[in-house]
C-alpha cells in the first residue's frame, strides 16, 4: 500500500450534501428508483432489449440481400421497414441511450465523487419517458400498416406519402411521436449529466482531473442538448404536415394521379434540420466512446494517458466543430458549390483533433505494460476499426469523391465501421470493464474471448466486402438487385457471404448475453478494484456501491486519474483519493 496521510489532515470537505432520496419499499428501490445506478441499469437493459430487436431486423435484411427471392415473407415493403427501424433503433434508442443514459448515469456520479445526480427525480422521469418512447416505437409493429419504411433519415416528401410503408398509416406518426418523446426524456437526463459534472464534483476534483470518460460523456451531452432540438423541430413540423396538411416540407406534388393539398414546401429544409442534429449525433456517440477507450487503455496498459490536456482540448474542439459540418450529408442535394467547398473543408479539419486522439492512444500503448484483458482487446479493436472507418470518411468528405459514392454500399460500410462497430466495441469493452463494479462479479473469461474474436473478426468480414460492393456501384436501400448488370455473380456470392457472417456475429452476441446473465450469480467474485484502477468508482467502500455511493465521507481528490506506474510508489497505481506526492525527484510527504 502507498503511504497514506490520515484523511483528517485535510479539513472536512465543504461539499454540500445532496438531499438523498431514500427508498422505502421494493418498488421505489428497484422500479421507480431515483438512484442513478438503478436508472443506469434500467436504461442499459431497455437499450439492450430494443437493440436485440434491431439485431433481428438486420438478420432479416441480410436474409433478403444474401438470398434474394428465397423468403416470401420479406416483401419490399417489409424490407424498407426493417432498414428504417434497424437504423433508428441502433443510432438513437441503443447507442445514444446506452452511452449517455446507461454509462452516463452509472459513471458520472461515481467518477466525480458525488452521491447521486443533482436532480434525481427528473433523472427518474427521464428513464420512464425513454421507456415510453421505446414502447411507442415498438407499438408501430402492431399498428395497421406496420412501422414506417422511410429510411432512418425520414426524408420528406416520400416519408409521408402513400408509396412508403407507414407513410399514410400509423407508422410515421408513431415514429415521429416516439422521437419527440425520446428528446423530451433525453433533455431531462441530459440536464442532470451536465449539471452534475458542473456542481456535483467532490473536493479537489477540478475539471482537469476528471477522467476522460467523464469529459467525453459531458461534452457529448452538451452537444446532444443543443442538437436534439433540431430533430424535435423537424419532427413536429413533419407531424403537422402529415396530420394537419401544412406545407413546411411538402412541395406541390401529385400522388397516384391526384394533386395533394400541399404546396411549395421545402424538403431541403428538412434535410438541413435533420443533419443539423444528425452530424453532431455521430460525435454524441463517438465522444463517450473516445473517453471510455482512453480510460480502458490507460488502465490496462498500466500507463498514464499520453497528452491528457490535448485529449481534453481535442474533445472540446471536436464537439464545437461537429456543429459546422452537417451539410456534408447533403452534397447531392443540389447545393451551391461554395457551400460544398466550405463543408468539405470543415469536415477535413475535424480529422485533425480526431487524429490527435488516435496518436495519443497509440503513444499511451507505446512501451506500456499491456495486459491483454478483454476490455483491452476491445479497446485495441476500437482503435483499428475507428481508423478504418475514419479513413473512408476522408473519401466521403470530399465532394468529388462523395458524389459517385453517394447512396452506395460504400456509405453503408463507412458509417457502420465508424459509428456502428467502433462504438459498439467500446460498449462491450466498457461492459467487461465495469460489470465487476455493477454486479460484484467478473464476466466469464473464456466466453468473453470467444465473443471478442468472433465479433471483431466477424464485423470486418461483414463490412470490409461492403466497401467493394459500394465501389462497384451497388446501391443501398434496394430490396432486390438480382437483375441489375452491376450485380455480377461474384457480387452475389459476396452478399451471401456477408449475410452468413452477420448471422455468426449475431450468434456471438447471444453468447455475450448469456454471459451477462449467467455471471450475475456464477461469475468469479471481483472484489472492489479488480483492475487496480485509480478512478473514484473503484474506491467505493462497498461493491456494488451502496445507495449514496461513498459511505459516510465523500472522497477528497489529490491527483489526476492516471497515476499508473509512478516511480517511487509502492504499487503501480495510486488512486485519486490517496494523498501524498511520489516521484523520482520528490520524497513521499
Amino acid at each position: 500500500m502507498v503511504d497514506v496521510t490520515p484523511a483528517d489532515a485535510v479539513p472536512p470537505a465543504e461539499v454540500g450534501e445532496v438531499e438523498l432520496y431514500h427508498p422505502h419499499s421494493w418498488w421505489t428501490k428497484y422500479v421507480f428508483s431515483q438512484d442513478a445506478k438503478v436508472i443506469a441499469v434500467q436504461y442499459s437493459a431497455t437499450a439492450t432489449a430494443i437493440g436485440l430487436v434491431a439485431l433481428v431486423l438486420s438478420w432479416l435484411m441480410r436474409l433478403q440481400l444474401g438470398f434474394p427471392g428465397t423468403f416470401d415473407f420479406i416483401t419490399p415493403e417489409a424490407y424498407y421497414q426493417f432498414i428504417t427501424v434497424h437504423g433508428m433503433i441502433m443510432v438513437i434508442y441503443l447507442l445514444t441511450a446506452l452511452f449517455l443514459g446507461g454509462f452516463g448515469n452509472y459513471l458520472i456520479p461515481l467518477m466525480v465523487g458525488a452521491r447521486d445526480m443533482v436532480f434525481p427525480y427528473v433523472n427518474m422521469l427521464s428513464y420512464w419517458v425513454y421507456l415510453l418512447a421505446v414502447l411507442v416505437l415498438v407499438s408501430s409493429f402492431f399498428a395497421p400498416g406496420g412501422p414506417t419504411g422511410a429510411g432512418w433519415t425520414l426524408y420528406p416528401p416520400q416519408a409521408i406519402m402513400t408509396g412508403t410503408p407507414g407513410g399514410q398509416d400509423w407508422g410515421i406518426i408513431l415514429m415521429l411521436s416516439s422521437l419527440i418523446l425520446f428528446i423530451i426524456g433525453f433533455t431531462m437526463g441530459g440536464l442532470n449529466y451536465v449539471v452534475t459534472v458542473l456542481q456535483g464534483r467532490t473536493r479537489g476534483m477540478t475539471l482537469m482531473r476528471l477522467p476522460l470518460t467523464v469529459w467525453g460523456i459531458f461534452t457529448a451531452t452538451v452537444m446532444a442538448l443543443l442538437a436534439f432540438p433540431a430533430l424535435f423541430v423537424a419532427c413536429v413540423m413533419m407531424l403537422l404536415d402529415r396530420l394537419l396538411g401544412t406545407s413546411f416540407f411538402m412541395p406541390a406534388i401529385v400522388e397516384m394521379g391526384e394533386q395533394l393539398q400541399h404546396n411549395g414546401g421545402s424538403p431541403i429544409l428538412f434535410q438541413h434540420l435533420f443533419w443539423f442534429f444528425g452530424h453532431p449525433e455521430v460525435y454524441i456517440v463517438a465522444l463517450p466512446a473516445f473517453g471510455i477507450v482512453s480510460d480502458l487503455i490507460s488502465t490496462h496498459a498500466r500507463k498514464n494517458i499520453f497528452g491528457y490536456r490535448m485529449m481534453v482540448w481535442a474533445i472540446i474542439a471536436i464537439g464545437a466543430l461537429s456543429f459546422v459540418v452537417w451539410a456534408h450529408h447533403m452534397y447531392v442535394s443540389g447545393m451551391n458549390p461554395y457551400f460544398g467547398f466550405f463543408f468539405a473543408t470543415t469536415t477535413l479539419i475535424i480529422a485533425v483533433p480526431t487524429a490527435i486522439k488516435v496518436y495519443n492512444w497509440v503513444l499511451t500503448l507505446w512501451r506500456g505494460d499491456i495486459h491483454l484483458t478483454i476490455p483491452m482487446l476491445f479497446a485495441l479493436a476500437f482503435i483499428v476499426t475507428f481508423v478504418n472507418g475514419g479513413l473512408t470518411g476522408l473519401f466521403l468528405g470530399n465532394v468529388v469523391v462523395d458524389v459517385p459514392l453517394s447512396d452506395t454500399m460504400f456509405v453503408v460500410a463507412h458509417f457502420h465501421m465508424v459509428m456502428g462497430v467502433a462504438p459498439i466495441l467500446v460498449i462491450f469493452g466498457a461492459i467487461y470493464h465495469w460489470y465487476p463494479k455493477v454486479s460484484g462479479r467478473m464476466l466469464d473469461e473464456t466466453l468473453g474471448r470467444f465473443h471478442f474474436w468472433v465479433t471483431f473478426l466477424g464485423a470486418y468480414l461483414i463490412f470490409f466486402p461492403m466497401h467493394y460492393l459500394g465501389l462497384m456501384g451497388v446501391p443501398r436501400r434496394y430490396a432486390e438487385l438480382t437483375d441489375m448488370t452491376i450485380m455480377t455473380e461474384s457480387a452475389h456470392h459476396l452478399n451471401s457471404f456477408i449475410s452468413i457472417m452477420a448471422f455468426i456475429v449475431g450468434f456471438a452476441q447471444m453468447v455475450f448475453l448469456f454471459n451477462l446473465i449467467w455471471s450475475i450469480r456464477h461469475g468469479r467474485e471481483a472484489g472492489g478494484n479488480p483492475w487496480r484502477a485509480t478512478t473514484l468508482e473503484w474506491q467505493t467502500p462497498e461493491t456494488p456501491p451502496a445507495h449514496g455511493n461513498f459511505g459516510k465521507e465523500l472522497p477528497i481528490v489529490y491527483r489526476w486519474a492516471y497515476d499508473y506506474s509512478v516511480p517511487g510508489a509502492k504499487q503501480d497505481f495510486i488512486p485519486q483519493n490517496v494523498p501524498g506526492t511520489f516521484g523520482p525527484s520528490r520524497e513521499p510527504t
Partner: protein
Amino acid sequence: MSVILVFLLVIAGFAGWWLSHQRLLAKPWLEQGMAGEDFVDLGRSPLPTAKIGLGVFLAVVGCLFSLFTSAYFMRMGLSDWRPLPLPRLLWLNTGVLVLSSVALQCAVVAARRGQLDMVKLGLATAGLTALAFLVGQLVAWRQLTEDGYLLASNPANSFFYLITAMHGLHIMGGLVGLGRTSASAWNGGRPERLRLGVELCAMYWHFLLFVWLGIFAVLAGWAATIIDICQRLLT
C-alpha cells in the same frame, strides 16, 4: 440556419469564457497531492445548483426557438409565402406578459426582503397575468381563423400558429412551476426555499418574455427588415 449558428456562437462564447476560468492549461500530472483548499475557485459554482440547471435548460429552449426561427427564415424565401396581418391584440398580450414579468420581479425583491405578503401578491399577479396572456393568444388565434387565415392555407400562417403554440406550451409549463412555488408560499414553506423558487420562476419568466419579444419581431417582419438593412449596409 444562420439564426441557430449565431445562437450557438453565443453559447460557445459563454462556454469558452467559463472554460477559460477552469485552468485548462494546467498540468494535472504535476499537481500531485493537492486537495480541495488548493483549488478554491475551481469547484462548484456558488450559484444554487437549481439555477444552473435552469440556465442549461433555458439554453436548450433558446436553441429550440432559434431553430424555429431559422426554419422560418428559410421557408420565407420561397415563392408561396404570404405574410399574415398580425392581430392588434398581440400588442395587448405583449403588455400583459411584460406585466407578468414585472410582478415576478417584485416578488423576487419582496422575497429577498422577507415580505411574505408582497411575495404572495407578486406570485398571484404573475400567475393571473400569464393566464390572461394565454387567453389573449387564444383569442388572437380565433380572430385569425375567423378572418380565414387557417393553419394549412399558407406557410406563414402555419409558422405563426406553430411558434405561438410552442411559446404558449412553455408558458403553461412555467405555470406548473409557479403553482408549486405559490403553494409553498401559502403553506408556509422554508423562506430560503421559497426565495429560490421565486427567483427560478422570475428567471424563466424573463427568458420567455425575451423569447416572445424575439418571435414577435420575427412574426411581424421587423426582424427580416432589420436583417435586410444590415445586409445592404454590409454590401
